[in-house]
């Protein structure tokens, strides 16, 4: 058996070594997540101890989850709601703009500007440091009294748009489409769903814009995690439960989308 890196049939020892290395790397990758799950089911006092096995080493409790969904219910639900609203609508809007532009670039020839140059120009925006536009955004929002407003935070997220345009433009076979709504959209649907979900993950995970422009009313889950750093120090149980809450949606979506994730992150350069 010759494989893509040219090894003849592996010796059992070689397979064992590879397996052990892979298992070690898997433990390293999963450890922080598993530790967070364990910690989120501990009493505050236990959460600072290196104990792993419930019932045997520590008494499991829903203290952290009770705190998140009962004691500080309003804060948690507001952040959760904001996260969902912002990610849902900002991705929808950028998908719409992106799908139109992608279709136009794939279907028509732009002689003077060249399609490829337009696409690359759009793509180049993805590389800008977001921190470089904070000051003008801040000044505009202050003028319009939009600071700490969910709508305003949503507008910022459209800055994530370029990736989606590029993705939409890359959907295979775009050039053969005859009519946008009747034919192109249905055919491109799987690609568009992938783009939407990717965009949703990026908006959901955004931190910088929200922490600057949406500290209170427009707070999202990621910003709420940062809030578990109190003057007394870091509440481990709180960090753990809130992080798990913020991690679950993007991880589930990424799992469903695993075939597109790398392609999305490499701006279409690598296809899986």
């Amino acid at each position, binding site marked *: 058996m*010759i*494989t*893509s*890196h*040219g*090894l003849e049939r*592996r010796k059992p020892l070689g397979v064992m070594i590879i397996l052990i*290395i*892979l298992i070690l790397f898997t433990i*390293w*990758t999963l450890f*922080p997540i598993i*530790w967070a799950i364990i*910690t989120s089911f501990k009493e505050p006092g236990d959460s600072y*101890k*290196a104990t792993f096995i419930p019932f045997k080493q520590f008494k499991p409790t829903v203290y952290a989850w009770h705190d998140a969904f009962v004691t500080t219910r309003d804060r948690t639900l507001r952040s959760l709601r904001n996260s969902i609203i912002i990610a849902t609508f900002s991705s929808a809007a950028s998908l719409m703009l*992106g799908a*139109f532009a992608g*279709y*136009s*670039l794939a279907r*028509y020839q732009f002689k003077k500007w060249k399609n*490829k140059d*337009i696409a*690359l120009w759009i*793509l*180049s925006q993805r590389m*800008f*440091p977001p*921190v*470089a*536009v*904070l*000051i*003008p955004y801040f*000044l505009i929002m202050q003028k319009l009294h939009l600071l700490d407003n969910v709508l305003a935070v949503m507008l910022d997220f*459209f*800055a994530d*748009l370029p990736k989606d345009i590029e993705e939409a433009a890359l959907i295979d076979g775009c050039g053969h489409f*005859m009519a*946008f709504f*009747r034919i192109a959209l249905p055919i491109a649907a799987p690609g568009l769903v992938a783009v939407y979900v990717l965009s949703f993950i990026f908006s959901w*995970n955004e*931190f*910088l814009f929200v922490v600057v422009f949406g500290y209170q009313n427009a707070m999202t889950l*990621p*910003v709420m*995690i*940062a809030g578990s750093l109190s003057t007394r120090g*870091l509440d*481990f149980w709180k*960090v753990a439960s809130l*992080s798990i809450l913020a991690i679950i949606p993007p*991880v589930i979506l*990424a*799992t469903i989308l*695993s075939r597109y994730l*790398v392609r999305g*992150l490499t701006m279409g350069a690598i*296809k899986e």
Partner: protein
Amino acid sequence: MPGHLTSRKTVKWGFLIPALGYLALMAILPLVWTLTLSLMKWNANIMPKPVWVGLNNYKYFLFEDPRFWHDLGFTVMYVSLSVSAELVIGLALAWMLSQRFKGKNFFRVVYLIPMACPPIAVAFLWRMMLHPDIGVLNSMLKLIGLNGVKWTTDARIAPFTLIMVDVWEWTPFMFLALLAAFQSLPIELYQAAAVDGANAWQMFVSLTLPLITPVIVTISLIRAIDAFKLFELVFGITGAGPGGATESLSYYTYLIGMKWFKLGRGSAISWLFVIVLLILAMILISRFKKQRT
């Protein structure tokens, strides 16, 4: 909107312009505005109006402010070390897994978890685990009789702690991208090489490596551009400490503009930042251009 009712030109431009217009409004316009502001002095806390100062702000960062150079140096070191480590580990793992292997899909799903997580959640989970006294990492080290490590409290160690977390978060990306590249390699070449009696290492060095070098360069550039914007890990894990040892360019820019409200200086450093990234971006874009002709 049936196609035959609208003219070709309307669809062509009508579909493209909203996106271009939006980008111009949200990216180009702010950048031009920032450029103007960068020539002003405007400490918004105490000054109602900006005052023209010419190139003073740029002069300040380039010639008078050691903090700017330190942060640039730290960011460059952070980017080079994390990207190299991620590349080497990712390459090794992808090479191992490109073998026919049961459970490949399992690994594929496990390894996408770190990069799908919100970076700030990653930062705070690690901050909790890295706590010098009660963090789980030091507790486990002490359990096996070793001394705890001052992960975030020693200025010589803290930069490497951040690099370690970046490696945790992004090695899977390198790995998955390289795995995809490995699987697109032409198998005939390897069969021919095997007939000629080449061993696995020779094949890797003389066949695989040259074939995937373009992919390696592209994904390293993409990672470098993203790593350059390092913000969340600094914000969440070290808070730029100890003593500013782990302050990244993004973090300093954020402090100047959004904490101290020095809008002129903040705009100048924003533009310096844009220029640095532009150089990296141009290299990447010229690669994309070649790739798509």
